[in-house]
């Protein structure tokens, strides 16, 4: 349940950004998370809800956007999007190599957008 700690960092960043832009009410926030990070989106939403109760952020919605995995093949170097992102088995459609690719996207965790009033 490290999502509790992630939610509290997220809330701090949101509060900073709201203050920076002179906004007082958060409508929604969007978090992008790579498919290969150890994040459970429902758990992060739950942690956000719990920690914003009875605060000005309580009515805001947290939108979770998943970033798909893309890799550069460890054999031929060509880029592809595996059908089933699994660190052990991502067969390259070009040369057939099954693992040890370089992950290009899919490990991100960032706040990318706020809607506020």
């Amino acid at each position: 349940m490290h999502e509790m700690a992630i939610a509290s960092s997220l809330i701090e960043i949101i509060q900073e950004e709201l203050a920076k832009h002179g906004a007082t009410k958060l409508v929604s926030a969007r978090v992008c998370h790579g498919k290969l990070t150890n994040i459970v989106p429902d758990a992060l939403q739950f942690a956000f809800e719990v920690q914003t109760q009875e605060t000005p952020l309580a009515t805001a919605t947290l939108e979770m956007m998943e970033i798909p995995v893309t890799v550069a093949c460890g054999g031929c170097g060509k880029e592809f999007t595996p059908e089933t992102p699994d660190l052990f088995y991502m067969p390259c459609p070009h040369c057939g190599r099954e693992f040890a690719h370089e992950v290009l996207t899919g490990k991100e965790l960032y706040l990318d957008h706020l809607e506020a009033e």
Partner: protein
Amino acid sequence: MDIPVVRNILEANEKMADQLRELFSRHAVLVLNLISSPGAGKTSLLERTLADLKNEFSMAVVEGDCQTDNDARRVAATGAKAVQVNTDGGCHLNSSMIQAAIQNFDLAATDILFVENVGNLVCPVEFDCGEDFKIALLSVPEGDDKPEKYPVLFEKSSAMVLNKSDLLPYVDFDVDRAKKFATHLNKDMPIFLTSCRTGEGLEGWYDWLRAAVRAKKSR
């Protein structure tokens, strides 16, 4: 009002971790973050290491657990400096906990700082503690498919210790399978098959530590 942001959610932890890494580098302290499930033998590995290498290196330990200072007392019995961090239910250590704990150490007189994380194969992986290397520990009774089930830890670790090798005759643990999957993720990762009870395999781990300390000091 739309506010585009794009900020790493863990930026505060990572910034502090980078500051710690710089501080540790200034004092040439090798910092290792030990990660495993509870009961895999992190504390036992430290007890052996601290006792066996105490004439070679000055070592300190930050112990992370939800409750109790049992582990700090165990490792302090070897003569090493140890500080216990209790997370009160928290599932991982983070860089500000390390920052607070190291105030108890004289870094200039320390060669190796071990961070023994809270027993957990998932959460500690996401929180940089300012270490040089993560070390994954796995004990044979846990099963040989742990690298498959928890790939991110094994991908991000720089060495793997397979502990409790003295129990191999009693459990169905396929050493080659565990090694195969771990090296799929991390092809140059050194793997040490050890028993902290009998001492088997520890010499390889010690040699790796010696080389890592030398490399850190020559940087």
